[in-house]
């Protein structure tokens, strides 16, 4: 067993255990922390695949920005108390069964497929380096890159508009 395989299985077990704990644990803050562990494990997978740019972006954007936003919202609303009411056991069981059925279908499909035993290039290849990705991004994909800035602007305006306190409904003007 090579060092790459040991790292792969270690990171996979870490990601799966953290994901299960994220779903199962009661407190939202603990859930967010487990999700951050999942994101770091997935970044480790990206590094194993030599996709260095995506590994760094995953840590910065997901674990750094998005999860801090989630933590801010949870702490802003003071949700750390276990406020979730008693859940219906039947609904939990049905959700577990349906998710497990989907998993079984996917696994059964890939065991029949012909690509299942193809090898993945683990260490080598320079396609995921920042230099190559930057060249592709700013030559072939420059228009989607610019459009994504418009998307960010509209998301920012939308978040501000939605999150704003609606004072006009309290004090109707005109009359």
């Amino acid at each position, binding site marked *: 067993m090579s060092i790459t395989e040991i790292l792969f299985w270690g990171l*996979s077990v870490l*990601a*799966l255990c953290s*994901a299960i704990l*994220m*779903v199962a644990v009661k407190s939202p803050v603990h*859930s*967010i922390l487990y999700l951050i562990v*999942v994101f770091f494990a*997935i970044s480790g997978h*990206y590094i194993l695949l*030599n*996709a260095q*740019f*995506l590994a760094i972006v*995953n840590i910065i*954007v*997901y674990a750094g*920005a*998005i999860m801090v936003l*989630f933590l801010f*919202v949870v702490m*802003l*609303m003071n*949700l750390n108390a276990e*406020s*979730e*009411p008693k859940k219906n056991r039947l609904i939990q069981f049905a*959700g*577990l069964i349906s*998710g*497990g059925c*989907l*998993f079984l279908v996917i*696994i059964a499909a*890939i*065991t029949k497929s012909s690509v*299942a*035993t*193809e*090898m*993945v*290039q683990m260490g080598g290849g320079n*396609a*995921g380096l920042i230099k*190559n*990705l930057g060249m*592709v*991004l700013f030559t*072939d*994909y420059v228009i989607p890159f610019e459009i*994504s800035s418009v*998307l*960010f602007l509209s*998301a*920012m305006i*939308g978040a*501000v508009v*939605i*999150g704003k306190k609606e004072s006009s409904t309290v004090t109707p003007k005109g009359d």
Partner: protein
Amino acid sequence: MEIQWYIGLAAALFCIGIVGVLTRRNSIIIFMCIELMFNAVNLLLVAFSKMHAASAAVQSNPSVVSDAQIFVFFIMVVAAAEVSVGLAIIVMLYRNTHSVDVNFLNRLKN
């Protein structure tokens, strides 16, 4: 590493996300499960791109491998924009109902 292990890992993460969406009632945790599903798909895309990098047909045109990773990058961009709007909606929900339980969102039912 064979591609089937990556497919299995991504499918397992995706199904854990689906089980979370179906069973939890806290809207913030449902939102985080959606992020988990995004990440499972991203991991699978990167693994497939590296699988094609090893195949012989791609060796003549190496920019095909970069395309998949650019695609993952744009998925992350869209996810970041989606999270900001979604969290604003959850904050507004909390302000109106003083709860983040999605079962209170059944006013369209009647």
